[in-house]
């Protein structure tokens, strides 16, 4: 029987199996006092990160590098990964573009031509747009966290982990199920296209599908110093749900909601700094605040739900070395790294083209929260984004905890037309 790429995947690699191997390898190395397993014969494969490590966007870059270094160190300690007939150590090569398009181009070329990386991980937006012509021409496998970067011409650009902001639909769907009395919502977001408007369109669609009327949407610039008048204006419409479609100003906005006595439900795309929010408001006020990104010590990240090796161990290792620097990208880039290993093992090669082919040939690619599906042609012209389940997180007694996993893919299968309508209403690019 001919082995399909999918069957090869299943035989050779699963992240849980990989975890077992890793821990066994580490244990063997520790107990026998031997040097790292197989190091003498191992080759090295470099994977690149062209990300912001300084400037305003650094929280969406640097923690990801730290996360990848932890995962790579664990893999290497266990003897590396077997790809084809060779064993490889993983090495991360990074370049700080500071969210500057010029530096992004320089960084991308440095990583590809000088560091000989086999994949480049990026955040997304204009820094991806500036490298696209060259990257596609050189057929370099590139990843983004913003699937809206995908166009019909970006064959080598994939979004295999975060599909910002599609996952937001799960939070609204869950809220509507749990709190059917919520009938109206107000949305606040930044006025940029990459993050703010994409997210607003997604929330608009999710609320429409959930039967919740959006009574007002505020698009504000990045230079707002005082959110009091904006929040007052939105609260004057008496929404049952207050929705923050992007996270940049989560803390000052929730502070305003607290001071202005908001009693309804709060939904946010992310809330990485929720401990700060609690410190500035109260534990009682943020109780039930719903968002989309779990802490990795969450007990609900069980092996049957989360395809990520030892999430709690990863969380502990990260916070030991980089306390206070956690953000969602801390686990997202490592997750992409694991996607790459999976595809490289299936391809039996580390070269970008066969790895991409293996990735795309897998109709049920691994995703952080369970198997996913390739999607995106309906919206951006190419099925190069992986969507699957995504957790709905809420704050319970001062701690972010996963409430439930819901399927982004199922929602999109049923409601892609609604999403497209709202994207077009905000002049966002769709096919």
């Amino acid at each position, binding site marked *: 029987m001919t082995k399909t790429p999918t069957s090869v995947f299943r035989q050779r690699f699963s992240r849980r199996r990989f975890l077992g191997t890793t821990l066994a390898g580490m244990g063997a190395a520790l107990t026998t006092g031997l040097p790292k397993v197989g190091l003498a014969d191992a080759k090295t494969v470099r994977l690149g990160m062209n990300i912001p*490590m*300084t*400037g305003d966007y*650094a929280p969406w870059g*640097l923690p990801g590098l730290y996360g990848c270094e932890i995962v790579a160190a664990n893999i290497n300690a266990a003897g590396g990964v077997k790809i084809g007939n060779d064993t490889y150590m993983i090495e991360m090569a*990074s*370049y*700080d573009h500071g*969210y*500057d*398009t*010029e530096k992004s*181009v*320089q*960084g991308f*070329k*440095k990583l590809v*031509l*000088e560091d000989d990386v086999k994949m480049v991980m990026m955040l997304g*937006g*204009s820094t991806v*747009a*500036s490298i*696209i*012509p*060259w990257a596609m*021409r050189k057929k370099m496998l590139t990843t983004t966290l913003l699937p809206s970067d995908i166009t019909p*011409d970006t064959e080598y650009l994939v979004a295999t982990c975060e599909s910002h902001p599609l996952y937001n639909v799960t939070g609204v769907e869950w809220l509507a199920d749990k709190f059917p009395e919520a009938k109206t919502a107000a949305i606040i977001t930044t*006025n*940029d*296209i*990459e993050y703010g*408007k994409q997210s607003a369109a997604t929330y608009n669609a999710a609320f429409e599908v959930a039967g919740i009327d959006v009574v007002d949407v505020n698009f504000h*610039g990045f230079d707002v110093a005082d959110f009091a008048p904006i929040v007052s204006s939105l609260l004057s419409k008496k929404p049952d749900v207050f929705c923050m479609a992007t996270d940049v100003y989560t803390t000052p906005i929730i502070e305003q909601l607290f001071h202005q006595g908001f009693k309804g439900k709060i939904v946010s795309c992310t809330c990485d700094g929720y401990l700060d929010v609690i410190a500035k408001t109260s534990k009682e006020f943020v109780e039930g605040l719903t968002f989309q990104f779990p802490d990795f010590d969450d007990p609900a990240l069980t092996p049957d739900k989360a395809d990520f090796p030892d999430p709690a161990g990863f969380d502990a290792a990260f916070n030991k070395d980089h306390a206070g620097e956690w953000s969602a990208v801390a686990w997202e880039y490592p997750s992409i790294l694991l996607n790459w290993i999976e595809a490289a093992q299936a391809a039996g090669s580390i070269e970008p083209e066969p790895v991409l082919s293996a990735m795309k040939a897998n109709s049920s690619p691994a995703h952080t929260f369970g198997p996913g599906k390739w999607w995106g042609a309906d919206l951006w012209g190419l099925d190069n984004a992986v969507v699957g389940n995504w957790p709905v997180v809420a704050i319970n007694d001062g701690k972010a905890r996963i409430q439930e996993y819901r399927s982004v893919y199922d929602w999109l299968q049923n409601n892609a037309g609604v999403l497209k309508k709202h994207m077009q209403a905000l*002049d966002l690019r769709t096919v």
Partner: protein
Amino acid sequence: MGANKLTHVAGTAALLIALVILPGHLKYHHQDFIIFLTINVLVVVSYRLMTLTGEWSLIHIVMMGVGAYTSALLSKNLGVSVWLSIPLAGVSAGAVAALLSFPLFRMTQFYFLIGSFAVGEAIRLAWVYFVYPFGGSSGINTIPSPELFTIDFMEPIPYFYLVLAVVTLCLLILHRIENSRIGLTLHAVHWKSPLAESVGVNAWKYRTLAFIIASIFVGVAGALKVHYLGNVTPHQFGVGTMVFVLIWVIVGGYNTFYGPILGAIVLSILDEAFRAFEAIRPAIYGVLLIAAIMFMPRGLESVPGWFRERLFRKTAE
């Protein structure tokens, strides 16, 4: 030709020859680096022309954006040849500068600085607000590269030579302007404005002229940049970028033609050299900047003179 002039010509020729040879000996990403650096040289030198009148503005980088957007829209949406859209970018930036000069030059000095910032931000935010035709915050992507025979201008070395040729031509023109009667009048408007006006010099007209000329050249610089990058966004022309231009000019010195060039080159290379320090790189850059301002208040342009002076003193002793 005097000996001094001959030295200058020989020095410039040697520098140009070195620049022609240089890219083949650089790492790949440094080839990109010198493309952007060469474009930035045109940005700072054109800015200095503006400062000759004594007016410092915060709109210069936005005028670069006007050129960049013009060339991007003409070449991508209207199919205009890039070879034509680049000079038209300069014309467009100059025309916008001419229009803006009416409100802006009702102010001088600090008020002009603030006014130029406000107008610049208004233009930049218009690029964010109007998704059509400017593409909003994500700007315009897949902007075409120039085409000429079989030359591949997406590769850095051919594009560097194009940029080098255009920037060299622009610098020659700017140098000629500064050393012409117009340039002398610009100096007069700065240092002896009442005296110049008393002999019939229209200071407003010359300030406007300097603003328009500076904008034309920085518009060309913007066009050169976007046809290599392939995209243009409002983010590229924010006040943060303008602050870098000011730093380059101030640290380099603005009393000579080459001062800002030195500033742009030295500081950009330092920034690149400290890349290995990752997150603490801005702090190192800041410390160096403070040290440069403290110990070289007249800018990097004073360093050759300082060396010359020491050499002559030693020879005399």
